[in-house]
């Protein structure tokens, strides 16, 4: 028996309608844990280089991890993996809620989908029974309505659904599925893959128990985590107000980007607007706390908004990233507009970061006369104009007029209009997240050089700097490799285990390893963790390398690294030597920065990477 796993994986071909069940191999579990560890290995094996991400050979994975559907605190996330239609390289994005554990309880550690269905379908999984069902009647429906409709149709009130909305149906490049009404594996182009496959939703219901090697130990670790949580001020603050507790401070201390990354919070945005966009102020709408599955912290909340220009009724507390993307980034201090955009993104299925950042790009282009009022269907897209922001967002959601262009993200729009490219704020084409590397320099390395570019949840030294005041020593770029790699590999393991990143606010790092050991019965010490993390990293990295993407090909736009440096505010004068951070990191990881080649002996030592070695170094190793 494979402790910690459902023991089976599903492979579905939507072209032929074939459904295949395979055992979860023991070696896969040992070598790659779960999540995008599984995903990178399986997509590497199933997909040829050069595969069209939106074509029939493109594979999309939904994957749980060993902590999912167990009693382990914070263990409820699932990961979506695919080839990004934006970067042409590797993509993974994870999400909380209840969908992941339900998939596992329904009998499957993971689900991989290829092919293109001739008509809209949804996949229905109920305790080991799998069907591809017609979804013609659901096409056009928003993500919340689909969830309700499917609960009724299947007569399963506890059904969990991950569904695209109209944005994904239109193959919008910045669209995503939404599960549980408001949780999203959003980034990098997950929605367009579902849309291109005519896959409206995956609906799961499960009641099976997952075998755990040492259940008492899991409870013991839980106790430790609960104690640590009580001691952690950060965890307490997140538990009370969610990630949005930091929105005002981040807007002013340089952590949040301001005015499409060209502005300064204390100068251009100001305290009054900053405070209005934070969740301490917004929680006047709070009706209920929201915890994902197995989460003792609960950073979410349900809201009821009955005032302002857009009385939404029941909605959800926006996350920090959303509040910043539709706040300081657009110089918008109108919370009702931000709440409305959050709701549009959740119902139509958009990545809020990319949506906000795309509007920020358009705003700057409008201010500079690059995009005209005619380009924008008569909308005066001036900085901070909440009404204009909502109008543009709605057009993107409806795929109407300029929205039909902007719904594919800023890079696509700049190419389409053939202007404004110099105002993009992206990493390899992905809109940057809401933490500024000029404030936390290590993030420049992650944004630019992680195999999944433009992410703030990939660990590294930037992940720690983000939580600290600005420190001079963070701008010394020598010798960063060991710490940067160590903190990256820890997060590789964390993500693969399906634990939430916010567990790190209170649980010491070794907690993840202890959970994995207790659940799977594997010996999971520091050394195993390091090697496993590096193996997973190499697998994602190799996916890109096989597509011809080397470190030198990865891009990060200049404002993010202070070229030129800001002229005012707390980040005045700072810039980041991202090339050096990258060289330090790759050297430590055993990868030659210039050629992009990983060290053969290291790959052999790590094991589980035979296909990668064969592809890079030839048949006879």
């Amino acid at each position, binding site marked *: 028996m494979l402790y910690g796993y459902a023991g089976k994986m599903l492979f579905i071909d939507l072209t032929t309608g074939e459904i295949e069940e395979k055992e979860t191999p023991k070696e896969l579990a040992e070598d790659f844990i779960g999540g995008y560890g599984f995903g990178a290995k399986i997509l590497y094996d199933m997909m040829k280089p050069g595969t069209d991400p939106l074509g029939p050979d493109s594979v999309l994975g939904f994957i749980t991890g060993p902590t999912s559907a167990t009693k382990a605190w914070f263990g409820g996330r699932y990961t979506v993996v695919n080839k990004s239609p934006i970067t042409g390289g590797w993509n993974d994005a994870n999400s909380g809620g209840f969908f992941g554990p339900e998939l596992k309880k329904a009998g499957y550690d993971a689900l991989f989908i290829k092919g293109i269905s001739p008509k809209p379908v949804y996949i229905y999984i109920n305790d080991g029974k799998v069907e591809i069902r017609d979804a013609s009647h659901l096409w056009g429906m928003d993500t919340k309505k689909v969830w309700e409709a499917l609960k009724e149709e299947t007569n399963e009130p506890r059904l969990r659904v991950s569904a695209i909305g109209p944005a994904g149906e239109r193959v919008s490049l910045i669209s995503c599925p939404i599960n549980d009404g408001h949780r999203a594996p959003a980034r990098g182009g997950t929605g367009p893959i579902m849309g291109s496959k005519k896959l409206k939703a995956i609906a799961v219901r499960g009641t099976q128990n997952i075998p755990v090697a040492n259940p008492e130990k899991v409870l013991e670790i839980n106790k430790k985590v609960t104690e640590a949580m009580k001691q952690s001020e*950060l965890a307490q603050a997140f538990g009370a107000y969610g*990630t*949005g507790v*930091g929105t005002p*401070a981040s807007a002013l*201390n340089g952590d949040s980007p301001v005015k499409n990354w060209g502005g300064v919070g204390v100068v251009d945005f100001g*305290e009054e607007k900053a405070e209005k966009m934070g969740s301490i102020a917004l929680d006047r709408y709070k009706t209920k706390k929201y915890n994902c599955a197995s989460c003792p912290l609960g950073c979410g909340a349900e809201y009821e908004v009955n005032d302002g220009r857009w009385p939404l009724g029941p909605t959800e507390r926006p996350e920090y990233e959303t509040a910043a993307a539709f706040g300081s980034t657009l110089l918008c201090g109108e919370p009702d507009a931000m709440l409305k955009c959050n709701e549009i993104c959740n119902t139509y299925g958009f990545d809020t970061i990319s949506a906000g950042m795309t509007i920020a790009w358009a705003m700057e282009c409008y201010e500079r006369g690059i995009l005209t009022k005619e380009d924008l269907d008569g909308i005066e897209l001036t900085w901070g104009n909440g009404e204009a922001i909502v109008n543009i967002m709605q057009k993107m959601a409806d795929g109407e007029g300029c929205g039909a262009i902007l719904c594919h993200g800023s890079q696509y729009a700049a190419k389409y209009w053939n202007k404004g490219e110099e105002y993009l704020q992206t990493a390899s084409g992905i809109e940057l997240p809401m933490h500024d590397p000029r404030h936390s320099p290590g993030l420049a390395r992650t944004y630019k050089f992680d195999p999944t570019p433009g992410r703030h949840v990939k660990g590294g030294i930037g992940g720690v700097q*983000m939580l600290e005041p600005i420190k001079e020593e963070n701008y010394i770029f020598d010798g960063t490799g060991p710490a940067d790699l160590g903190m990256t590999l820890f997060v590789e393991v964390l993500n693969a285990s399906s634990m939430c990143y916010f567990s790190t606010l209170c649980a010491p790092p070794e907690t993840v390893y202890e959970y994995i050991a207790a659940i799977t019965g594997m010996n999971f010490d520091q050394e195993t963790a390091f090697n496993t993390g590096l193996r997973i990293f190499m697998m994602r990295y190799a996916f890109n390398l096989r597509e011809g993407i080397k470190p030198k090909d990865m891009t990060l736009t200049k404002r993010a690294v202070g070229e030129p440096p800001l002229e005012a*505010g*707390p980040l005045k004068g700072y810039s980041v030597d991202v090339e050096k951070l990258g060289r330090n990191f790759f050297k430590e990881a055993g990868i030659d920065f210039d050629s992009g080649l990983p060290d053969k002996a290291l790959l052999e030592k790590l094991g589980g990477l035979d296909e990668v070695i064969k592809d890079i170094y030839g048949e006879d190793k």
Partner: protein
Amino acid sequence: MVIKLKYMGVIHDKMPDVLDLEEGTNVKTLKTILINMSDEELKPILSNASFIVNNMNANDDTVLNDNDKVLVLTPLGGG
């Protein structure tokens, strides 16, 4: 000398908006003063807070002047 204070994040109620300090007080001393007068649960938050003085980043050695405007920010990057 008198400085004005503004707090963002979980540090709000009960903390002073104005403080009368000795000439030459630096941010480190100000931090200690604030920690001493704060509730128990705020102390660790304050000790890790960012201080922005007249819109510029300040470190422990930054010397405060009369009429300075100090922003005390909880570094809570997340999400």
